[in-house]
Every structure is written in C-alpha cells, then in structure tokens.
C-alpha cells in the first residue's frame, strides 16, 4: 500500500489544553485506507483526544491532520463510536439509527429500508421499535455501531467501545465488528487499553506512552482475516500479546526514566 492511498496522515500532532497540560506531543502516524489500526495505551495517554481531533471535534495545537479527500470528512465521511452507546433515550432503535441520515435530510420513509436492513445486520432484527432502556449494554452498543454505519462512512473511529461490556459480549462484538469492517471496506481506527483486544482485531497496533502521549512503538499483526476463536487460543496469539505487552511496559518505563 503506498502512501498516496493513505486515509489518515498525522504529522507531529500535539495538543496542549487551556490549563497548560500537554496531552499529546508530536504524534506522527499514517493509516492506510481500508486497514484496521488499533491505538493502544494506558489511561490518560491522550488517545481519546487524538481520536477526537481526527474526527474534527477538537483541533491540534501543533502539527497537522490530513484525511483522504480533504481536511474533514472526505467524500465518504467519518463516523464515531463512543465508549458509551450514546443513544437518544427518547427515541426508538429505528430513530437512533436513522439519525445521521435524518440530519443529512433523508425522510423516515426514504430511509426506512436501509435503516431496517442495518438493524438486522447488527443482529437486532425485531427491535426497531424498542427504546434504549429496554436493551442490554451489548444491544445498545450494536445500535450505536449501526448508527455509525448508517451514513456509509469511509472512516470509522472507535473509542474503547467495548470496554464496559462483559467478556462474552465483547468477544462476540469483536467478531461482528471485524465482519462489518471487511464487508464494507472501511478504514477502522480502534482505540483501546486492552492488549488482547488490540491483537485480536487489528493489523497494526500503534503503542502510545503515558502523558504526554507520543507514539513509542508499532507492532504489526499479520494474522490473516477472517480471524476466529481459534486465533485467540493459538500460541501465536499468546506470543503476539506478550510482545505487545512488553512494548507497552517499555513505553511506561521509558517515560518514567
């Protein structure tokens, strides 16, 4: 993959907050179009801030962020999945998934088929009229993802979306996420603090050190897709996890010196 097919280019991006805290210092990263990249780091290292800046919700103090097709959005836009499902509690599943299309001007009737297909695709067929409070945590996260997929984004940004879920649900969603990603040819940027998750999901892990965040290592995971439970129980997986954990620990040590 050559650089010109890069979906995201981060060039020495830094962020200093109003109080003076330096959250990020000189992060440079290149994300190839269609790839699945994980950003791994301890709490407080600025990875969420980085993601928000890529989404255009925040601006860097130094450096630049370029997205394929222009500074923001591009021809196939950006979607964001938060750590909380962030659903509108007063709307049904349908209305929540419909939201991005609605904001773009699509009427309920015009969007109906697409939205219902999406609801089915995330495994919630029949729940279109349910309210968020009737759903479990995992189900709400599926709605959130369905919503993110609704406007056919080119770039899917996810900020620790499965961190609050139990292991079984998390593993199932991991598999589903990979499936949706491959099916739609998105570029996926996945922030996490879980080594296991990063290794299982991504092709490339960008390891960040503690505050002020900077990229300290990159680990390639060249296990082919589709990945299954078998991968999770393979020795190769364990080795990769150790290597990544070590990189993470080194990052902590390095900064501490």
């Amino acid at each position, binding site marked *: 993959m050559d650089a010109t097919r890069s979906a995201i280019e981060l060039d020495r991006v830094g962020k200093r907050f109003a109080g003076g805290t330096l959250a990020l210092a000189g992060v440079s990263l290149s994300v190839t179009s269609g790839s699945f990249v994980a950003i791994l780091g301890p709490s407080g290292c600025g990875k969420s801030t980085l993601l928000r800046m890529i989404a*255009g*919700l925040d601006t860097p103090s130094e450096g630049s962020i370029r997205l394929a097709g222009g500074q923001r959005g591009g021809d196939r836009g950006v979607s964001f999945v*938060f750590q909380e499902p962030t659903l*509108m509690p007063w709307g049904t599943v349908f209305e929540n998934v419909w939201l991005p299309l609605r904001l773009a001007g699509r009427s309920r009737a015009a969007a109906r088929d697409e939205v219902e297909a999406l609801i089915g695709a995330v495994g919630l067929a029949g729940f279109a009229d349910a*309210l968020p409070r009737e759903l479990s945590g995992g189900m709400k996260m599926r709605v959130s993802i369905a919503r993110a997929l609704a406007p056919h984004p080119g770039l899917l940004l996810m900020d620790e979306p499965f961190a609050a879920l139990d292991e079984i649900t998390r593993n199932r969603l991991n598999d589903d996420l990979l499936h949706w990603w491959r099916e739609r040819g998105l570029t996926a940027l996945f922030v996490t603090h879980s080594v296991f998750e990063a290794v299982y999901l991504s092709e490339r892990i960008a390891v960040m050190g503690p505050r002020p965040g900077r990229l300290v290592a990159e680990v390639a995971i060249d296990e082919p897709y589709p990945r299954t439970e078998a991968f999770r129980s393979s020795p190769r997986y364990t080795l990769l996890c150790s290597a990544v954990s070590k990189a993470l620990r080194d990052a902590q040590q390095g900064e501490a010196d």
Partner: protein
Amino acid sequence: MNPRRFPSVRVIVPTLVFVAALLGWEAMVRIAQVPHYILPAPSLVLATLWQNLDSLAQSWWFTLKITFGALLLSAVLGVALAALFAMSRWVELSLFPFAIVLQVTPIVAIAPLILIYVDSTTAALLICAWIVAFFPVLSNTVIGLRSADPNLRDLFTLYRATRWQRLRLLLVPSALPYFIAGLKIAGGLSLIGAVVAEFTAGAAGRETGLASRILEASFRTEVPKMFAALLLVSLTGVAIFLLFNLLARSLLGRWHESEEDPGRRS
C-alpha cells in the same frame, strides 16, 4: 401487598387515610364541643360550601383563570428566556441577577407596588402570580438545555446538524424532563402566587377570587365560610399536582428515569 404492583392500592390507601382523618376531625369537634368560630366541623364546612356554591364557584373560576394564565405565561416566557440564556452566556450573565432578585423578593411586598404601576387589578394579580411561578421554569429549563449528553452533542456536530435540527432533535428532548419538573413546581406556586397576591392587592367586588372570599369571611367572622373557601384552594392545589403528574407521565413515562416504574426494569 406491594403498592408498586397494584396501582389501585396507590389510590385507595391515601383516600382511606384522608377519610379517616376527616372523621376524626368531626368526632373531635363534636365530643370536645369546639365552637364553630374556632374550628368548624367538616360537616359544617361542607354544608357552608354547598349553601354558598354560587358565589364561591365564581370566585374559584377567577382564581383558576389567574393561576393558569400565570402558569401559561411562565411556561412560555420561561422557555423563551431559557433558550436565550442557553444560546448566549453573555445574555445569561447579564440577565440572571434580575431573575434572582425577582425570585427572592417576597410577593407580599411587591404586590402593592405593582398595583401602583398597573391600572387593572386583574393584570396586577396575573403579574404577581407569574413572578412567583416563572423562576423554577426558567432555571430548570436552562439546566435542561445544558444537560444534553456531551457525546450526543459531538455526534450532532460530527454529522453537521443545523442549529434548528440541534434544537429540535437534541436540545428540546434533553430539556423536556427538566422543563416538566420546573412546570410541576410552577403549577403549585402559581396558585399560591395568585392567592397571596390577591390578599395584598385584590379589590373586593367584581373579579374576585378565593382569596377575597377568605378575607371577606374573615372580616365578617364567618369562619365556616373561610374554611369552605380554603377547601377549594386546597382542592385546586391537589388537582394541579395530579394534572402535572399525569402530564409528566404521558410525556416522559416511556423513556425517562424520573417516571420509571421500578417493576418494569428488565
């Protein structure tokens, strides 16, 4: 019998207790021979109410008009001003002190002043009742408008929502529970405001509400009539409370925690 599982229990138990209290009151008055001008028995109060139903009903209607007029004004102006405050921090900072001053100054002191500036007594009463009821709606709605989930707000920004879309689809539904809470408070307060304002600023004769009836009965030492008028005031207060509870339930019952029925949690 868990009151949560059997809704009819929620109605029956308070009613029974209330009726028992009334019977106790009646018994006490009769047994202790309490004079009617000190504490009239419920039976006498009800009889007096029945005898004076015509004039009391007219006054009741007037008080209701002032109460709901003030409430409507509070709701409309409260929301409008809250929207203004939510849009501009500067406007909020400039105007909020006035709102607070209006809130804390006792209406009993303001009422005669307003009467000096406003010619019509009815208008003065409406203004007084509005002042009392307005602030809870304003402050609650402002908080409500600000309470929209920040992540949702980011989402709306991300998907490039217009200001109007943001208001209609995000801010208004987010603010609704708070607005309703403010309205519940304002409902009771506008009744109190209407009655208190009339005590100080009302004029007897035409266009008088229950407060004037109470005062008149007090000056003519007709104590059972005082109680009868007070009874109507209380009934109105209870009715307003129930009305707004119903409103809250119908608007929020489906989705908001404040109206959640604990038995329903999945």
